[in-house]
């Protein structure tokens, strides 16, 4: 079990300001059932635009509930300008610290607050800035860069702990690593691209990509893939294990196997399944 501070425990067992303000001035919702935690924050302002009342509802672990409770306590009586300055670190500090694996719970509080303030100001909830890197949790490159600099993160695991990116299927780990390298000013040796791809080189690249990028992911789900032949740009494969006969196999072939091969070899490739 996690080592929580007494303050986390106290706010978990006796959370402050649980509920929903029906005629709220601002409402912010983040998270989902699928990703395992979610927070709905509502607040009411007084005549001087100070937060008069604030309530939360949270689905999640003990530290998610405690972080939400702490956030509402921090917000009470603050002007909107002051509230905007509240960060996830403030939430964590208020609680006497959170285990590193649980920092994302405090980040969720900060995000709900941003959304609730945007809601009050009538700013349409802006499209997320940047490009989605982690499809599972909808995290963008801009958010990852910000987390990297704000919290001095250096590994993919850290990034997952703080903003969940990379905590799902894992397909984005490589992109996160690239962002980390950029932030740290590191450079990986660029892969020299030959001007014209020979057939032998294409075959080798296809084999390498299957082995390195595709098979490990399929094997995770009890499946596998075997290269049968390469004919021009047609890649003939046969699915094995849990993949063979799986109803989602065609989607996997198109959306995952073919995409990866096109990305790493040449964009003209077409993947076809052959029966043995």
């Amino acid at each position, binding site marked *: 079990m996690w080592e929580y501070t007494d303050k986390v425990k106290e706010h978990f067992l006796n959370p402050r300001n*649980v509920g929903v303000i029906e005629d709220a001035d601002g409402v912010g919702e983040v998270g989902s059932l699928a*990703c395992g935690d979610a927070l709905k924050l509502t607040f009411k302002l007084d005549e001087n635009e100070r937060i008069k009342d604030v309530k939360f509802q949270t*689905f999640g*672990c003990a530290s*998610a509930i405690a972080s939400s409770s702490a956030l509402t306590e921090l917000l009470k009586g603050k002007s909107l300008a002051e509230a905007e300055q509240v960060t996830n670190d403030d939430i964590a500090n208020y609680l006497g610290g959170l285990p590193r*694996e649980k920092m994302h719970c405090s980040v969720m509080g900060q995000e709900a607050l941003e959304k609730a303030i945007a809601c009050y100001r009538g700013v349409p909830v802006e499209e997320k800035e940047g490009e989605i890197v982690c499809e599972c949790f909808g995290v963008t490159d801009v958010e990852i860069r910000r987390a990297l600099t704000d919290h001095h993160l250096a590994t993919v695991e850290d990034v997952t702990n703080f903003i969940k990116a990379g905590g799902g299927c894992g397909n984005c780990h490589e992109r996160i690593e690239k962002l980390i390298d950029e932030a740290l000013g590191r450079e990986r040796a660029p892969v020299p691209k030959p001007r014209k791809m020979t057939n032998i080189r294409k075959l080798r690249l296809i084999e390498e990509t299957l082995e390195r990028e595709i098979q490990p992911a399929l094997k*995770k789900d009890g499946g596998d893939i075997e290269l049968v032949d390469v004919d021009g740009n047609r890649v003939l494969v046969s699915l094995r294990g849990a993949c063979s006969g799986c109803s989602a196999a065609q989607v996997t072939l198109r959306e995952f196997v073919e995409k990866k091969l096109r990305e790493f070899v040449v964009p003209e490739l077409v993947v076809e399944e052959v029966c043995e």
Partner: protein
Amino acid sequence: MKTIYLDNNATTAVAPEVVDAMLPCLREFYGNPSSMYGPARQVAHRLEEARARVADLLGVSPAEIIFTSCGTESDSTAIWAALRANPDKRHFITSRVEHPAVKNLGEYLSRNGYRVTFMPVDSRGRPDLDFFYDHLSDDTALVSLMWANNETGTLFPVEEVARQVKERGIVFHTDAVQAVGKIPIRMADSAIDMLALSGHKLHAPKGVGALYVRKGTKFSPFMIGGHQESGRRGGTENVASVVGLGRAAALAADHMEAENTRVRQLRDKLETELLRRIPNAMINGDPEHRLPNTTNISFEYIEGESILLMMDELGICASSGSACTSGSLEPSHVLRAMGVPFTAAHGSVRFSLSVYNTEAEIDYVIEKLPAVIARLRDMSPFWQQVQTG
């Protein structure tokens, strides 16, 4: 505050009789069982008595029992032994719901030159046997299926599978860590070649396990060293713990009936009453073919860790199939393999009983838990959505 311990699939209390049997081995009987003089022979005698008791629990011959350090070591020993004994075969079949002791070794093997097939299960955790039989091939060296699932208690028909597997000349191993001591196991007419068990799941201490290897099964040791355990596992025996395991095995035989009558009734009462009193709750696993002591219940729209910590405040110990670890709240691989929906998987709690639980304890949990669930649901935005439609 009194502790109500309902996490016996994680570990069990060491039985007082087991402690009594062990203490002399930590005090006066300290000799090395491999030595020649009298005091050491007394130690060796106790070791062999323990072996006989473990063999009796399974209905096998003492010579077929190897003592190990834990269930994981027993599983690893069995799997490696079978693969080494059949070097020309490169295929291994197991299931998607195995304990990490087998699952992670399977994944390791698949990265290191073996073809590994993970058999799927249905929504109740029952095996897809057609898939399984379809995947047996001449290249298959070994099949390893757990007897009882640690999270849901679901039983696999291992005897039946072992017979089919044996007909094809393939070695069959079962991780029976959760089954031994909870359900009767008679190996005399069984086709199972190897069986792993763990001491601390049946009221012996942690750090001791055993592996049954059927006479005539090709075997090569995992721990290479001295001639202990008839050359099948090097290393001086953990005498006190082995003696404890022997005593625990005899106790388990004595308790077998109570386990399958009284404990089962308590489990059924807990389950029935919780489902009656708490809406949106459901059982995970196969209600029919299941360990008598285990129930895994999902409480929709709330999260497991919160439930555990609130129960902890009431002195109730249980565990959850959902671990809120790094970043993502990840439901267990067992519940995922069963396709339990996210609304339920995150809020799953496993209660596992033992003969030491009383009806008063179960009544206390039945009385207290509905309020805990209601309290967390009051905080959950999803619960309100469900309530208001």
